[in-house]
């Protein structure tokens, strides 16, 4: 191998390493913070970072509503128009895959990018 070949090979390896380093750094930087994702009838309606305290009213055309409260890194339903109030009595959620469900209003609030709970689904009496 000639000197130039070595330089070329080294340069190529260097570029490759830089690219991978960049990709790793990029994925680190773009790792999103935990957020509560609101879906109505399976359709996404909004995302709210758990790091910012906020209150969101999710009102539908027929007048039904749920009031979502994000506070101290957790999300819960403060108030709702549904008859059963199952969503209101549910404990606050903060971990990956946890959800608040309001069946009558077809509302689901789910945590994305949250700390892994390691749980893929929960068996419950719904």
């Amino acid at each position, binding site marked *: 191998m000639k000197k130039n070949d070595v330089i070329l090979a080294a340069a190529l390896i260097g570029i490759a390493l830089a690219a991978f380093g960049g990709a790793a750094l990029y994925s680190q930087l773009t790792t999103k913070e935990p957020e509560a994702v609101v879906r109505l009838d399976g359709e996404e309606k909004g995302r709210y970072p758990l790091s910012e305290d906020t209150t969101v009213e999710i009102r539908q055309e027929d007048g039904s509503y749920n009031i979502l409260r994000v506070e101290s890194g957790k999300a819960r339903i403060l108030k709702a128009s549904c008859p*059963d109030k199952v969503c209101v009595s549910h404990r606050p959620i903060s971990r990956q895959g946890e959800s608040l469900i309001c*069946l009558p209003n077809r509302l689901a609030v789910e945590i994305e990018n949250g700390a892994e709970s390691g749980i*893929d*689904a929960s068996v419950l*009496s*719904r």
Partner: protein
Amino acid sequence: MKRIRYAKVLAAAALVLAGLAFILCKSRGPVRYEGQFYDCFDTVTTVTGYAESQEDFSRKVGLLKEKLTWYHRLFDIYHSYDGIHNLKTVNDAAGKEAVEVDAQIMDLLLFAKEMYGKTEGKLNVAYGSVLSLWHQYREEGQKDPAHAKLPPKAELEARAAHTRIEDVVLNEKASTVYLADAQMSLDVGSVGKGYAVQKLAEYAREIGLEHALVSVGGNVCAIGGKADGTPWKVGVENPRPDSGGTYITAVDLASGSIVTSGDYQRYYEVGDARYCHIIDPGTHMPPDYFASVSVQAEDSGIADALSTSLFNMGFEEGLSLVEGMEHVEAMWIGKEGETRYSSGFKVNEEK
């Protein structure tokens, strides 16, 4: 000469890069998706699985919804649908005539009769007349909590006279169902969902979902483990959310189902007391044994039927029922949060 050598080096470098890129892509593995739909069995269905793309996954979830909707309609006792004879059709014809039904309804009712025998009547799909009375009082109570009432004892007793499983007359050859008592009605709420989930799991495999987790309102069924071969981890919810953690425990699920019956989530309050939606055919009242019972079984229909039955009987009786069946395990959570397990119940970890 020099050019050729450069070309060789470049080609080699390109190969290395391509190889690295391939490894990088591969290490990401198939992408995990989650889909959700409503309208089936009055609950929310969540499907977790893997696919080539979001479109591919959404299409498969759409097919699952179609399938589950079909079962929902067949087992519906409140609504009629054009072109199908469902359980409402059968109920409406009680005491009048036999109704020709789909093979799936026949199959479900045969299974339900078998489970009636195994559970000594704790699982009774002919219990509709009593359940409908509770349903009516529960709905009224939820709408107007200040005036919530319990169904009168005398009326419960009167209706209970019309719940004989022998009056559900099945003619397999003609594929007909006849309710021999005009005042009786079918309600498959304790078994229909589990039965449908089992069929849904089989269908999921047919459409190419080999690694998926389906939860129909907390009735969880695994189709294979995760894509990497490890089992899914399913948390058993704490029935008393005000105290303790989210989950009581977790189980590994690579195949089969786990189903819970509990006194939380679906109930109404009369005064200070809570009355859940499960009614014990022995007393015609919500049972008072446990906060929840979870049953793990290969077949989701069996898991569903048994979880309701076990919720309606004491621990000793339930335990001997479970221990007498193969590939069935159970976990009981008491009113004070105490847990008990059948001998083969495998806990993943205490949460």
